[in-house]
């Protein structure tokens, strides 16, 4: 099956190896006989409604400021897509922009698109380090690396992506990391998140396939993930040994 992916602002928000996540999705789809068809959605481009998966990565503050006004113009189309059960993965800066707003250190407010029930306020120190999450909704853990000045606060009824076992998470105090809404996932875990967390890559693929077929998320055939699981172990151990403490 052909899975259509809309990659938002790859020219601007591409720091921290976002293409690695796309490469992993493409390869894991291919090995199950599917094909990932990735299209860039840039500044001023319309958002076609037929993508099965949207992806937005992280950028530096300057790039984020450059895309924020444009993203605001795409908010209705993106919100409608998620309500229509398209999958969405938003990482780091992209995650922040999906919330209602981002307030920088100077107090200036950058509008978000309100797709996720959260808001972000910049802190004066960055939260940097290895991080490990427990995701009870999936019965799995996620291992990664975070580097953000923003403190993200979820609304009371919002679901986090996971609970922090080691590291800072959304704000360094709540014990929550990321946010999950329908088939949209936002997280601060950047870079090669999917290579070392293959279950999450497969979950996103299954969500995208479900959108494609209009049915239930399929059970994907298991792959040989020996290297992936070994990398997950090392990354988890790093987080336990030296992840940020709050």
């Amino acid at each position, binding site marked *: 099956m052909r899975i259509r992916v809309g990659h938002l602002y790859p020219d601007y928000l*591409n*720091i*921290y*190896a976002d293409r690695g996540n796309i490469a992993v999705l493409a390869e894991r789809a291919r090995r199950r006989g599917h094909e990932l068809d990735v299209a860039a959605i840039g500044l001023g481009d319309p958002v076609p409604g037929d993508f099965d998966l949207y992806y937005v990565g992280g950028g530096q503050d*300057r790039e984020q400021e450059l895309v924020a006004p444009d993203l605001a113009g795409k908010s209705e189309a993106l919100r409608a897509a998620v309500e229509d059960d398209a999958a969405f993965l938003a990482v780091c800066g992209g995650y922040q922009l999906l919330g209602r707003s981002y307030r920088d250190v100077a107090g200036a407010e950058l509008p978000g698109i309100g797709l996720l029930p959260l808001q972000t306020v910049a802190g004066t120190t960055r939260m940097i*380090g*290895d991080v490990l999450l427990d995701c009870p909704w999936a019965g799995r853990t996620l291992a990664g690396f975070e*580097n953000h000045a923003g403190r993200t606060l979820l609304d009371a009824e919002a679901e986090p992506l996971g609970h922090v076992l080691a590291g800072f998470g959304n704000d360094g105090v709540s014990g929550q990391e990321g946010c999950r809404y329908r088939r949209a996932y936002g997280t601060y875990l950047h870079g090669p998140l999917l*290579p070392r967390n293959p279950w999450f890559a497969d979950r996103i693929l299954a969500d995208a396939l479900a959108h494609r077929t209009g049915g239930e998320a399929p059970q994907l055939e298991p792959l040989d993930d020996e290297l992936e699981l070994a*990398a997950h172990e090392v990354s988890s151990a790093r987080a336990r040994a030296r992840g940020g403490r709050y």
Partner: protein
Amino acid sequence: MTLLSTKIAAARAVGSVVRRAGRGGGTSLPGKVLLALEPHAISELAARLPRGSVVVSATNGKTTTAAMVASVLDRAGVPVVHNRAGANMAGGVASTLLAAARGGDQIDGELGLFEIDEFWLDRVAPQLEPRGILLGNLFRDQLDRYGELDTIADRWAAVASGPTGRHARIVLNADDPLIADLGRDSPDVTYFGIEDPSVAIPEMQHASDSKHCRRCGAAYVYDVIYLGHLGVYRCPSCGRERPQPSVAAEQISLDGTRGSRFELVTGAGRAGVTLPLPGLYNIYNALGAAALCLDLQVPLDTVVTGLGDVRAAFGRAERIAIGEVEVQVMLIKNPAGANEIVRTLLDADPPRVAVIALNDEIADGRDVSWIWDVDFEPLLSGLETLVATGARAEELALRFAYAGLPRARIEVVGSLEAALDRGLALTPAGDELAVLPTYTAMLALRRLVASRGYVANYWEAAA
């Protein structure tokens, strides 16, 4: 004895104890002790240098560029005080000055030559009151440690436009828009750059930074891209464009991993340079070094001879013969640098076996995400076996697996020593083995190879 000389003696004693205790190198500790005893030690000792100081900073190529300047100044007969072992934060600079200090307010050397860590430039340079500041490039690098690129650019801009910059000759890379922009308010600037579209790359590499104008935010238009975001650019919105370089390389001929030749064009005339270090990135290093030395009134022919004599800084394109195999050690530390290593390897006979060592200590960057920004893919066509090693060997293995290297051809070998031996065993006699370590892996590799008697320890070489 003056008070400072007492403190110098105390700091030296600490350094010698540490070294005797075998605590690797101890290259910055004596300086840290000295700075704790005397916070103004750097400026006090630097003031003893009769010809003043010059400083070099960049994301990539600091150590090599400073080595090139040192080689030229050696030819010019100028004795330098130089942190050649690469200890480039305040402690390292202080250690170097400490080692050169002599009694009676004397110092053993005439000109200070200091490479300075990007993040320390605004703290260390003002203490040195340098007469020359060479700024080579800014690439995304270890964002877990340094924060975002724009933050460093802002700090550098404050140095360039502040009192330190106003009293110095500033040498800037015209081809790097982030660097060239630092000269906007300074009258006394020398720009260097490449003027040879035949060595351009067809499109921008994945990890390219600074694609948007620092003044107005519009995307730069590039007529030529040489490396990363370095090239001939202009902003279609505000009109900002690459300054015309007064020191340039023309007629470039790259010779694989061995070196290159080019025509060095300067205000003092032109001359052919044979550079014994490989890759376009080293031509940029050589241009910066040449521009700085010419500003110091070194004659052009001395510059050319000095560049021709330069030796690889440790772990940077260094060649070590081990048995019948020539091992090439090429440090990788960030996407732009690693991309140039890949390009250089491809320009020679592409390696059939590579040992890549990925560590994740602070000096390597704890965040290993950057390996996904490196364009390793062109290596795949010739690569028969990848030996992945280091603390994050599995992450590296995954990088190549998802790039398309069959998993059967990837070997994860935890120990660096076992990985090196595996690489040597896989390499036929008379062939070359490419070893690409990150920083702490490179240090470990040096110790390992030295313990087998192949190269000197770097702090001995630096002495």
